[in-house]
């Protein structure tokens, strides 16, 4: 109880808690995970300029996808999800990436095996087909893969499914059939409320992914991984974009030290010719 300025008592109305996180029918979460060059590796451009060298290079799960797996596991631990399915699309070795997700807490995996260079639209179409079959309440993706930095799959998938999307999420709260997502945008934070089912893409600050602990690594061995081909999902994965050329950024020239402001101005004018 509190009083207004004139001494009248104002009743505080207890607002019913929105809807408990567990009130909604527990759902499945789908988490696509991409196998990329490890973030610690200093990438080298192939000598023919067709791409980045991946032979003999350490590969790992895309760090933003790790954040996606972590978020899914946390939602499951809170009782907001019943099952986490990790999906990876690409070469057979992507199974390792799925296994990492299983060791972090995902329940089962789906590998869509293809030797073709899979581009965002093809991946989004295949994920759509998987989503239609699995009927997840939520799909959490990394906001971008650190190899090609396309940042397109999540948005394309949302469009194809006709679902709401909360991209670049730094905080996610589920309230019944809807979800509040705080997004990192230029100049600040934007809060959006989405209806489920929905798509989230993860930003760096959403969470700090856990280590896969030793007992969980041992348990991951027993979790199932289904393998299929793009054709099983009715998708033609042929690339639509052509990479013309990949090259390293131009090398920076060594700097120079100048003795005085006059010398600096003189060099800017006559050597660099910028003023």
């Amino acid at each position, binding site marked *: 109880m509190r009083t207004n300025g004139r001494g009248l008592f104002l009743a505080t109305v207890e607002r019913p808690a929105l809807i408990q996180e567990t009130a909604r029918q527990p759902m499945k979460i789908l988490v696509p995970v991409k196998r990329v060059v490890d973030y610690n590796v200093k990438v080298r451009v192939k000598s023919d300029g067709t791409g980045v060298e991946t032979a003999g290079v350490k590969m790992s799960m895309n760090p933003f996808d790790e954040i996606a797996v972590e978020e899914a596991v946390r939602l499951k631990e809170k009782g907001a999800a019943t099952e986490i399915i990790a999906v990876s699309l690409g070469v057979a070795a992507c199974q390792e990436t799925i296994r990492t997700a299983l060791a972090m807490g995902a329940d089962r995996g789906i590998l869509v095996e293809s030797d073709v260079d899979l581009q965002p639209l093809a991946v989004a179409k295949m994920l759509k087909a998987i989503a239609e079959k699995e009927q997840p309440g939520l799909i959490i993706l990394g906001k971008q893969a650190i190899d090609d930095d396309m940042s397109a799959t999540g948005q394309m998938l949302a469009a194809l499914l006709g679902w709401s999307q909360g991209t670049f999420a730094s905080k996610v709260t589920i309230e019944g059939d809807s979800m509040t997502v705080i997004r990192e945008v230029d100049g600040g934070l934007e809060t959006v409320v989405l209806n489920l089912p929905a798509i989230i893409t993860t930003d760096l600050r959403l969470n700090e992914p856990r280590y896969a*602990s*030793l007992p969980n*690594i*041992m348990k991951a061995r027993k979790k199932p991984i289904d393998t299929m081909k793009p054709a099983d999902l009715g998708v033609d994965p042929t690339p639509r974009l052509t990479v013309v050329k990949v090259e390293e950024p131009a090398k920076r020239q060594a700097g120079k030290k100048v003795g005085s402001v006059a010398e600096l101005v003189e060099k800017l004018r006559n050597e660099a010719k910028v003023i």
Partner: protein
Amino acid sequence: MFELSEEHRMLKELVAKFVDQELIPLERQVLAREAAGGKAGLSDAEEERILARCKELGLWSLDVPEELGGANLPTVALMAMNEELGRCAFPFTFPPDSPNLHMLMAVASPEQRTKYLEPYAAGTAKSAIAISEPGAGGDPAGMITRAVQDGSDWVINGRKIWVSRVPQADFIIVMARTGDGKRHEGVTAFIVEKGEPGFIIEREIAMIGGQRTYELVFEDCRIPGDRVLGAIGKGFAPMQLRLTVRRLQMGAWCTGMAVRALQMLCEHARQRVTFGAKLSERQAIQWWVAEAATKIHACRLMVMDAAAKNDAGKDVRTEASMIKVYATEMAQEIIDQSMQAHGAMGVTKEMPLQLMANKVRAMRVYEGPSEVHRMTIGKRVLDGKWSGIN
């Protein structure tokens, strides 16, 4: 071709992450303390936090059998994990530091299993082993500490040295002569508990590389008869059980140390310019890098080969000796070259290289000096006991 299974590769990555994110960030503090005259290891508070993290991640009781609550990992997985651990400059091992485990498992009585082995395997009890004496180090069969039976008790008299982890140890395995036999014969293992009358910690000895060892005196140290570990007069062979896996583990640590030293060397050589050219463009450096990479590759294969054979139940004592010699010497050489390539910076106490150099220097001596291992290898080969040339 040797390849780790997917699961073992993930375990190796777990340890790599643990080393990079939990241990290596502590090096700066450890080095600063050491430079100021303190010990070159974790403080009690740091250790407590790190051990709690290990427990959380399941990095605990790795080679302990499942019935004792451990992960029961095969040697290949353990070695892959230990290689990663080797990259950390200060001394650290996952609990329980387990060479005594194999000896206890082989010979402990049912009562001793409950009282000593189980808490040790669970990491709640710590242990040490006292073998060397002032007059018997690399040749432990020359020990003179003696235990005499008195009624149902045993009374131990003698002096032991270079014993690690003594202050923390809840119990110590003490090797002593009980019979008239020469050398390996007539040696018996006993369990002496912390604080037992007549068991005196004579002094602490600071070793290079951050370790501490202790000199112990047993002065009419009386212990009950049920502390005999294994058969009377037959303690020497079970004691050796702890050594093979330990030597492979040292090989894995050395590989990790050499990897770290070479990474540092390469990183520096790519940037450092002298006399108008990068170090990486100089043949002297390139040859060091080439030799170092080749030796790391060879050492890793030697360790993994011996580990796989050990898992298959084969006798790898000769291989373990080869690894002990090769690994410690190659790591010492690579660390030294990395220091040299770093110039004055390489010999500061701000860099972990000096700590690694001291650590590996000590490793050429403990668990059998290189020369004793060479002697053993030579003899086995000459006696036709090594399958590699048969």
